């Protein structure tokens, strides 16, 4: 702002020029104007001038203050103060140099969330229906159990360990989509992977889990057996981990997208929840071995039966303690079904471009450039998760790889695309 100052004289000459009056009249007007305003202000306490603003006298209450030099307290007496509030039109003219500037949203496209998602209400309505459905399913599965009770539990456990640990390895794989070796497993069980990916941030103890995972994944594991999923674990697990709720709800939302296959998927889902939680429980065991120490003897048996080095054994043993003993595994693995873009986890192997971040690069802008919409930034973020701590912060110089995406995933005319993306967005922006 310049410090130029013009006096009323200059204003008067400009005024005379503009209105076509003599300077004398303009001068008289100005003087009278300020006098009248002053008078009226002191008399009425308020003067409103249309197209200019409002002068007002406001009362400032007395308050105590401290003299900064001497540290003494003193009282500022109450007094009247003149305030001026310009009218909107005047403020607009004054602000004209900056009028072209708009507020900028710094956190990506959160604003679009509200506008771009149709069918939000039916979504919520069906939510409770599905919740009750899952409850029924679990009840059914429990009713099933006693029939196959006869089998020795220990033997049953071993395949479970295999699958459970394999499931757990996947969280490692997903943040770093480059790891090709994992792809086979991922292809086989897309469902579980999604689940784990979604819940891993909410897990009770995410730290210990990966450690165990590393240990186990190094060994050649038993191939995933179809009988693997353990419904009984669901019981134990539901008490153990409150996180299940949110995992379930996420899944419910996700599942809703294909109502036809719903029930089939519920089996699948609950199976995956079970597996995940078994994994969590195992991690829990490693963290707090003293909780399970009273079951030291069974451990030996398991080791022999399974004929494996120690790490998997505690998993099995832990199950013995947590799971009710009379309930062995029952449940068919969900049959193979066509891949679904929305529930399937995303593995980024192909990249269509690489961008180097500069000052002012946002994932949303890259997303707009490559996918045609800002909301799909989440996939770029997923593909570059190992480099980016916070999706809102792109350190200049960072190489951002733009993954090739399934066109069905970024269909601008498909509400499901937006729903999934915004769900992920919420996840990434709140859990960071």
């Amino acid at each position, binding site marked *: *702002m*310049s*410090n*130029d*100052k*013009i*006096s*009323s004289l200059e*204003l008067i000459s*400009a*005024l005379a020029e*503009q*209105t076509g*009056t003599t300077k004398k*009249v303009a001068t008289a*007007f*100005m003087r*009278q*104007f*300020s006098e*009248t*305003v*002053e008078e*009226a202000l*002191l*008399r*009425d*306490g308020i*003067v*409103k*001038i*249309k*197209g*200019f603003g409002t*002068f007002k*006298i406001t*009362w400032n209450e007395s308050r105590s203050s401290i003299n900064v030099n001497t540290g003494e307290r003193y009282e500022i007496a109450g*007094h*009247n*103060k*003149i*305030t*001026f509030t310009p009218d909107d*039109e*005047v*403020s607009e*003219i004054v*602000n*004209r*140099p*900056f009028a072209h*500037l*708009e507020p*900028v*949203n*710094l*956190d990506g496209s*959160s*604003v679009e969330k509200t506008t771009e998602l149709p069918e939000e209400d039916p979504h919520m309505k069906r939510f409770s229906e599905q919740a009750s459905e899952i409850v029924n399913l679990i009840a059914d599965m429990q009713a099933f159990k006693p029939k196959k009770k006869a089998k020795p539990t220990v033997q049953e456990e071993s395949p479970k360990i295999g699958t459970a640990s394999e499931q757990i390895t996947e969280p490692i794989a997903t943040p770093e989509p480059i790891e090709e070796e994992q792809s086979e497993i991922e292809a086989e069980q897309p469902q579980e992977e999604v689940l784990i990916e979604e819940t891993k941030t909410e897990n009770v103890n995410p730290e210990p889990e990966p450690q165990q995972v590393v240990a186990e994944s190094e060994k050649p594991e038993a191939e995933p057996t179809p009988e693997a999923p353990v419904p009984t674990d669901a019981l134990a697990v539901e008490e153990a981990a409150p996180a299940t709720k949110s995992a379930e709800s996420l899944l419910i939302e996700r599942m809703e997208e294909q109502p036809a296959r719903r029930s089939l998927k519920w089996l699948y889902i609950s199976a995956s929840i079970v597996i995940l939680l078994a994994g969590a429980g195992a991690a829990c065991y490693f963290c707090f071995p003293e909780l399970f120490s009273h079951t030291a003897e069974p451990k030996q048996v398991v080791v022999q039966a399974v004929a494996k080095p120690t790490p998997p054994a505690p998993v099995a043993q832990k199950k013995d303690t947590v799971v009710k003993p009379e309930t062995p595994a029952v449940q068919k693995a969900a049959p193979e079904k066509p891949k679904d873009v929305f529930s399937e986890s995303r593995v980024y192997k192909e990249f269509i471009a690489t961008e180097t971040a500069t000052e002012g690069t946002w994932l949303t802008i890259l997303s707009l450039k490559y996918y045609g919409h800002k909301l799909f930034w989440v996939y770029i973020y997923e593909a570059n998760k190992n480099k980016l701590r916070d999706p809102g912060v792109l350190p200049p110089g960072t190489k951002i790889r733009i993954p090739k995406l399934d066109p069905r995933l970024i269909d601008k005319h498909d509400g499901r695309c937006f729903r999934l993306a915004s769900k992920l967005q919420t996840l990434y*922006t709140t859990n960071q």
Partner: protein
Amino acid sequence: MNNKELTTELTRILELPKEKITALLEATAQLMAEELSKGTSVNMQGFGVFESRRKEERVSVNPRTKVRTLIPPKQVLVFKPSNLLKDKAKQSNRHE
């Protein structure tokens, strides 16, 4: 006092047609605002100074959605009454 009363009063004292007064008032506001938008302050002797102040850009956070928004800089009109007027206001004892 509202705008109507002000114009009536000015018309009475200056003995000018009402339309003229309205036009003058509007022109005054217009001119002043334009000067101020250039960053020039307008001093009306014995009454006060109209200044424009620049408010710097800032980041505001919506407390509910936690969305950070960059608010652009802007220029606002500020009126600083003259000492004379300030004192008169202080002594006016308008406070009940």
